[in-house]
């Protein structure tokens, strides 16, 4: 069997979704932790020269970058427990939402860099995005993938292990039972999935990591005023 290696960054949702995909399909792999952002390995720079970012999957010595396409690659090479539906139209819907959530991911973290009024604006922005996702993306389904988790679910997982701890550090809450009932149910259902629940980054470790970042942003913000 060809060797599979994953270059990743432990708190990053872009890495985490690949870990979930590999584990859901029972694929053996070696994990190489990258010391981001300042100490990237020479292998990472060699395998992703355009973006120099994690995650990068190496299969039989050949590198693949961009987490969404790593997921599609994994899905194609190991087709059991599929991440994408069979029907072409349903696949286009899944890709649309995976892309939408992916594109909103970093913007949804911007509130964490901001303070005061700017922060409030970004928080409201997040609420708008979550409303769109709940109404148009998830709807009445259990998962974005329907009855089973799919690619869009793996991408949305960041709300649990990155957005939630960021919100906790700042002192706000995004997905609550009364404001986003369907997303709230999704969080519970997704977190209880066997492979998912055993493979979250350690919450407290993420919290500590984020607290240091928040202090850094606070210092920057003071110097800018």
């Amino acid at each position: 069997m060809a060797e599979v290696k994953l270059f990743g960054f432990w708190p990053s949702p872009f890495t985490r979704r690949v870990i979930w995909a590999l584990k859901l399909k029972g694929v053996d792999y070696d994990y190489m932790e990258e010391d981001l952002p300042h100490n990237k390995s020479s292998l990472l720079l060699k395998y992703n020269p355009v973006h120099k970012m994690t995650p990068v999957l190496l299969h039989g010595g050949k590198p693949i970058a961009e987490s969404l396409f790593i997921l599609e690659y994994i899905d194609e090479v190991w087709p059991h427990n599929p991440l994408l539906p069979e029907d072409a139209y349903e696949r286009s819907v899944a890709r649309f939402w995976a892309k939408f959530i992916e594109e909103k991911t970093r913007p949804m973290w911007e509130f964490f860099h901001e303070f005061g009024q700017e922060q409030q604006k970004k928080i409201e922005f997040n609420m708008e995005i979550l409303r769109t996702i709940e109404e148009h993306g998830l709807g009445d389904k259990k998962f974005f993938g329907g009855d089973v988790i799919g690619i869009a679910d793996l991408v949305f997982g960041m709300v649990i292990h990155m957005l939630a701890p960021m919100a906790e550090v700042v002192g706000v809450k995004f997905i609550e039972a009364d404001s986003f009932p369907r997303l709230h149910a999704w969080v519970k259902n997704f977190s209880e999935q066997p492979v998912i629940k055993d493979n979250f980054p350690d919450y407290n470790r993420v919290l500590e990591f984020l607290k240091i970042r928040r202090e850094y942003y606070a210092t920057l913000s003071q110097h800018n005023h």
Partner: protein
Amino acid sequence: MAEAEAVVKLLGAWLSPYCYRVIWALKLKAIPYEYIEEDLSAKSPLLLQSNPVHKKVPVLIHDGKPISESTVILRYIEEIWPHNPSLPTDPYDKAVALFWIKFADDKSPSISKLYRSDGEEQQQAAKECSEMLEAMEEQGLIEGKKFFGGDEINMVDIAFCSVAHWLGVIEEFAGLKILEPHRFPKLSSWIQNFKSVPVIKENLPHRDKMIALLKRRREVLLASKSN
């Protein structure tokens, strides 16, 4: 007798490179379709209903079912009509192609920023464009290969449409020169080859019409910024 409803409809806007991606994909596979030009200042109920999340073109409607986002549309077309394939079938080669298609998606907005901004903002956009072109020249294009797709164009070539046509027109309009042939020899060849492909050549917006619209848009944008 009632006219048969077109099975494939495309909602588009004549200036949008994202719409041309879909037009070319449909024409390269000889798929008949009905084209509906949208007035983006007065979007039709059909558009708003078909793409409630983004309210943007292009939207493909197949058997009444809408698909939005040009690259999602291209993947759908590829899967429903697999003849004249526009993506490699090998999973690894496909992943590499998808990487470059996303790169094109992520970096192309810098091109339209060139006419939408001035001063420092425009300089920043020019820098971003230059970096995009460098990556294409150094990492994307392979010496001796006519297209990203090899001897024939594929989805990657189509995804870089903004570089092939829109960039040149916008550069001319804005009085900039970023894509210098001596700096980007492979890219310059690629553009010539790409625009010689009959389906592409016969389906490109006209430079004069583009410049007239860009001029109007820029005036409106800069006026609203100063208010």
